[in-house]
Every structure is written in C-alpha cells, then in structure tokens.
C-alpha cells in the first residue's frame, strides 16, 4: 500500500515538472512566433517546437503509464475484495483517454491537420507544424475550440455544471449502481450482503464527496439536483441491501426450521405425502419465522430506513423532473397542488356558507311561523275582544233590562243564551286549529324517541 502512494506521489511530481517545462516551452515558442509574425511569414520550423509536440507524446505516455499502474495496483490491492462492477468505476484508463481525446479533438484553424488523431504519427510533428505555418494562424487559437471546452466538461462535468456534457461520468456512476444492484440480486448469502455493503459504503463515501461538492457553471443548480438524485439513490440501494440481508437471514432461518420440521415428521412416521400438506407445512413454518421478525422493532426500523430512503429519492426525482418541465407549457405538480388547495379551501367555505344559510333559513322559517302564530293569536284576541265587547254589551243590556225589570218585574232566562253561545264558538275553534297545524309534521315522534321536536311550539 505504501508503494502505491509513493508511486502516485512520484508521478504527480513528475507531471507537475513536465507541465512547468511545457508551459515554459509554449512561452518560448510563442515569442518565436510573434517575432516571425512581425517579420513576415516564417518558413522554418522553430527548433523547440518539435520538443513541444514530443512532450505531448511523452505526457500522453505518462498518463497512460500512470493509469495502467494505478489500475494494476488497484487490482492487486482490491481485486479480490471488491465486486467487479465496483472496480469498473475505478477505471484509470480514463485519464489517458481523456488526454488523448483532448488532444485529438482540437480544432485547428484553416483546415490544418491535427497530428493527434486519425493515425497521425505523434513523433512526427513537422507535417502539422508546416501546415500550421502555411496557414499563418496563431497556435493559441486552438484553445478557443469548442471541442476543447466540451472535452473539459466531459472530464469535469460535475464542477462545470455541464449536465449533458458530463453525461458520461454520470453514466459511469449509473453503471456501477446497476452493477451493485445486479450483484445484490445474485449475492446468495447475508455474508455476501455484508461484504457488498461495506464496499458500497466506502464507494458511496468517495462518490458523495464529488457529487455533493458545490458546483459551478451555468447549469450548476440542475447538476447539483441531479447529483443529489444519485447520492440519494446510493442511500436507497444501501437500505435495500440491508433489508435484503435481513430477509435473506430470515429466509435461511425459516428454511432451516422447515427442514427440521420435515425431519421431525419423518421420524414420527408422519411425513407430508400430499402436495397440499407439504405446502401447508411449508407456509406454516416459514410464516411463523417471518412474522416473528416482522413484529420486531429491528425490522420496523429497517423498513423505515428502506421506505424513507426510497421516498427521499422519489421526492428528489420529482423535483428534478419538475425543474426539467419548468421550461415547457406543461402544468407542474406543484401548480396543480396549489390550485387543488385553493379549490379545497373554496369548497370548505362553500359548505360553511351553505350550512349557515340553512341555519338562517331555519331561523327565518321559525320566525315566520312565530309571526304567523302571533297574527293568529292577534286575530284570536281581536275576536275574543269582540266577543268580550259583545258580552259586555249584552251584559250592559241585560243590566239595563234587569234594572228596567226591577222597575217592571218579569222573566230572566233571556240573558243566559248569548253568553253560552259566545264562549263555545269564539274560543274553541282557534285552539283546535293551532294544535292540528303545528303538531301534524312530527307525527312520528311518538314512535321513535329520536324524532324531532316541533320546530315551534304552538301558541296557546
């Protein structure tokens, strides 16, 4: 392990040294070029230019060498411990590929040939240089090449916030992710899950450093959200693995119990002969073990972790998808939710108003009935008053008549008739009427104790 780090440090020193030399030589060559431009087209190749290109070749070889060494060391140290899918993530050949691709993708102005691609000989820079000189283009214009920026984004996609251009790196992560899931599916034992989880934990730790680091660039927000999706998916698959481990352990336990039961049955000369009996026994024995585990606090916590990880991932994906849809005329979930919330609130208000209206209507109805009853009562009183007045008049007449008869004595039966008649006709009718109208509706009251009481008592 120490050797590995020493080698890495040594290579980095060498690389830095080479970069310094390269920069210096670029500068010298630039100066020569400037002189050449000042003094008309230069027909001769500057002496140090070949060295520059040779240095690119050396650099490429160094990249390749470093990548290969790193890969070999990784294989040596971790090859028998990490799953194959995970090792693929640490493909350091990417470094040399990147460098090669960078050089190869340079766009040279004026149709100049690129010496770094298409089978050109790296060691023979003269053709390139001649074509360059012929076109009289400044060398550094190549650095404005769009392809170069793309290449940089390809390599440093996360930091650049280049979602599309950095796709390859994401796809690498997804390849590993998928590999892990495949490994999960094919891992047969809980020990296997343990190993896999350890590996995944360390890998996730490293990957998260990059994924969750602050990002730059115009697409940084989206890129950051996307990185969070990947990071959360790690959590999800990890918790899935924990759940899978628990289920696998339980399956083994329940399998053992079933086997033991089968042996027991056989020893007692009662093995399940029929398929139905066999299946019933299998269900009974297995289910008992699983239900014991399912009822445990440990399982409830594992299930919580698993579902929570899945839900967090879902929420982050939703967020990302909404971000993507933001640019489209499609209504977003959050917009619809807001609208639905408003509608729900309005419905509540409507219901409240309707209830209040009903109550008011009831109150109005009661008031109307009360007014009607009052009117009726008033009418009754008027009639009663008339009756009383009539009676009073009758009494008065009777008194006068009596006084007259005292003067002239005669019969007294005439006064009793109108009094009796007035009482029976004037008072009986309204009372009966009120009773019949007000109590007619809740006629069921007597049958059920839950029946409504009359809305308004008849005035009596």
């Amino acid at each position, binding site marked *: 392990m120490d050797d590995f780090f020493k080698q890495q440090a040594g290579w980095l020193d060498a690389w830095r040294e080479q970069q310094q030399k390269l920069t210096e030589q670029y500068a010298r060559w630039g100066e020569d070029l400037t002189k050449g431009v000042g003094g008309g087209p230069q027909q001769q190749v500057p002496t140090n230019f070949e060295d520059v290109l040779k240095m690119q070749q050396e650099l490429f070889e160094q990249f390749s060498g470093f990548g290969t060494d790193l890969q070999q060391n990784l294989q040596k140290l971790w090859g028998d411990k990490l799953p194959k899918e995970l090792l693929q993530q640490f493909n350091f050949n990417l470094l040399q590929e990147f460098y090669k691709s960078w050089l190869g993708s340079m766009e040279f102005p004026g149709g100049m040939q690129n010496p770094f691609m298409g089978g050109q000989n790296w060691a023979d820079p003269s053709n390139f240089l001649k074509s360059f000189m012929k076109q009289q283009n400044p060398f550094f214009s190549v650095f404005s090449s769009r392809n170069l920026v793309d290449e940089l984004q390809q390599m440093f996609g996360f930091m650049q916030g280049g979602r599309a251009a950095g796709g390859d790196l994401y796809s690498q992560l997804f390849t590993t992710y998928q590999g892990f899931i495949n490994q999960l599916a094919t891992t047969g034992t809980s020990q296997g899950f343990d190993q896999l989880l350890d590996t995944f934990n360390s890998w996730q730790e490293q990957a998260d450093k990059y994924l969750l680091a602050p990002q730059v660039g115009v697409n940084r927000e989206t890129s950051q959200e996307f990185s969070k999706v990947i990071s959360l998916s790690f959590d999800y698959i990890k918790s899935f693995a924990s759940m899978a481990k628990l289920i696998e352990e339980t399956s083994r336990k329940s399998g053992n119990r079933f086997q033991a039961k089968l042996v027991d049955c056989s020893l007692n*000369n009662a093995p399940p*002969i*029929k*398929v*139905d009996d066999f*299946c*019933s026994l*299998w*269900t009974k024995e*297995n*289910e008992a073990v*699983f*239900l014991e585990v*399912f*009822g445990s*606090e440990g399982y*409830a*916590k594992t*299930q*919580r972790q698993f*579902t*929570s990880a899945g*839900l*967090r991932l*879902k*929420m982050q994906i*939703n967020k990302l998808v909404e971000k993507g849809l933001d640019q489209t005329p499609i209504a977003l*979930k959050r917009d*619809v*939710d807001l609208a*639905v*919330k408003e*509608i*729900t*609130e309005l419905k*509540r208000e409507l*219901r409240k108003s309707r209830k209040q209206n*009903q109550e008011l209507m009831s109150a109005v109805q009661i008031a109307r009935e009360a007014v009607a009853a009052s009117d009726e009562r008033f009418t009754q009183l008027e009639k009663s008053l008339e009756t009383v007045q009539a009676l009073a008049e009758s009494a008065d007449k009777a008194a006068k008549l009596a006084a007259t008869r005292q003067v002239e004595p005669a019969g007294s039966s005439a006064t009793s008739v109108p009094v009796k008649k007035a009482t029976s006709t004037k008072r009986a009718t309204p009372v009966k009427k009120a009773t019949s109208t007000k109590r007619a*509706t*809740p006629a*069921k009251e007597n*049958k*059920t*104790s*839950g*029946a*409504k*009481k009359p809305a308004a008592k008849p005035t009596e």
Partner: protein
Amino acid sequence: MMNYTQQFQESMDELKTFAENLKKGVENLAAIDEVTLAQSPKELVFEDGKRKLYRYQARTKDICPVPTLIVYAMVNRYTMLDLQPNRSMIRNLLDQGQDIYLIDWGYADRMDRHLTMDDLINGFIDDCIDHICQQHQLEAINLLGVCQGGTFSTIYAALHPQKVKNLITMVAPVDFETNDSLLFVWGKEMDVDLLIDAYGIVPGDLMNQAYQMLQPFTLSVQKYINMVDIMADEEKLGDFMRMESWIFDSPDQPGEVLRQNAKDLFQENKLVKGEFELGGQIVDLKQIGMPVLCIYADYDTLVPPVSAKKLLEYVGTKDKQELSFPVGHVGMFVSGKTQATLAPRVSDWINQRI
C-alpha cells in the same frame, strides 16, 4: 401406516386431480366475463363530488323507523359488505327490516390531496346525516362504522352526539397502544410526513403490499395453491374471484387524511388520551352518551380485538355492549359463521333501542 407403494399411489392420484382441476379451472377462468360485486339495489340520494350517499332498497314491509347509516373505511371498498347475495351483511340487515344508507367514499385522486379528516367527518358524514334526518324528519339516526369508518363514526358521535341515536362499531380501531397487529408496529415507526410529502395521494397498492405482508406466505403463495382445489367448481371460483377483486380494489388515500390518521391515532394514540382535535374541537369520547354496540373479531390480524373493545372503557354511556365472533377481520362480513347471526343480532340490538 402406509407403505411406499401406497404413498406413491396417493401422490400420483393427487397429482392427477391437481392437473384436472387446473385444466378445468383455466377453462372456467376464461369463461368469466366480469366479476360483479355489490349487487343489492340502491339509490343515489346525495353526493358531493366523488363521495356519495346511497339508500338501499327495502326488502321487507316493516321497516325500522330510524335508518342506519353505514360508514365504511376509506382504505378498501364498501363492496365487501355486499360481496354477493349469499354473503352480504347489507342484504342481511335489509332482511331484518333495517333501513340502510351507506357512504361510498369513491376513489380519491389528486383533487383530494388536501382533504382532511375534518372535511370527511364534520363535512361529508355530517352532511349525509343532516340529509337523512331531514328526509325522515328525525333528529338522530343510527350510525354503524366499519374498520376505519368505525373510528370516524366514533369521532363523529363524540362531536355530534345529538345526531346519533345508536352507535355501532365493527372491527374499528380506537385504542392504538397495542402492538398486537403488525400494522400497529409498523405504523408507529413509519415516517408519515415523508410518505405524504412524497406521494400526496398515497397509492392503494402500497397499502395492499403492507396488508400482504401481514401473512406473507399465506396470502402470496398458499392462497393460490388452494385456489387450484376449487378452480374446477365454477361457483367457488366465482366466490374466489370476487374476493380477489375486492382485496386488490384499494383506493388511493388522501394524504392529509392519512397523515392525521397515522400520526394522531397510530403513533400518538390521541383519541383515547382525549387529545385528538378535529375542526378546532377536542374529541371527548365521554360525550358519547347514546347506546354503543362494539363488535370485533377474535382472530383479527388487522385490528386487534383489544384495540376495538377498549372503546367501551372510554365512552360516556351506560348502555354499552360488546359482541365478538370467532372470525378474522374480513371473515366478519363474508364468513359462513357470521352470515346467519351478525345481522340479526345487530338488528335486534337496534330495535330494542328505537
């Protein structure tokens, strides 16, 4: 004890029968056009969007003067109560002369994202009861709540005791302290907020998966092995398919309803603690002064008996009674053991209190 030859012969016979059943069963399956449930005639009498109130057509001349409103759970469909003519609690109650109304919660969708328990209980249930009271010129009616609908009914009865003549709860969880059911164990540990925030409307299939896990081998494997035995019998296969159809007919759950249900009830057990709040009011179970009949299933793995029958310890009424049957949660409505006894006993209990 059988010898090897006999055992072999028996195994071969069984295999032959199995193959025959399977062949005939596949033919029977192919012949089934549609699986129909809930066929008892009913009339739509009130609705609010996808939530509907039905009144069942009477099956007797003498009808109980106080109607009964059935409030089923939202997590499954009410069709369980009227699965088929010979397995129908509703039909049995109608045969007993009860006047039956039923709430159909419908299938929640995105429009129900912000619906709350208050909207359902103080809203729709209350509207339904008002409607029925108005139609019958009554001040109060009977309320029969099933499972989660029983919990809703209990809450309603505590908040509006003047509108409930008699309260009947069936396999309804009230006290969530127990861990006798796996659902209660898992429910306490679940990150409910995360679930609701992620889904908004929680898929019914998610709930179904949880139910499946309550008996993972029985419900996922054994049930279908046993199915082969009855496949050749068209009638039994029809019964099986109806049940299967009901089991997986699980509506999605309005998020906010589930949030309050899971957090306040499953996790914090607020109802029996007297801390449950709805529409700005604390639900006090002591306010339940009307007669209460609490029905539970002895072998219920979804709602443990203790969770259901604890209700009687908290209500304010003195007229309270419990009734249990030696069945499971679903068996309460479809088991042959309950078909002949459940409805008559409920009906008698109601009639004695009218």
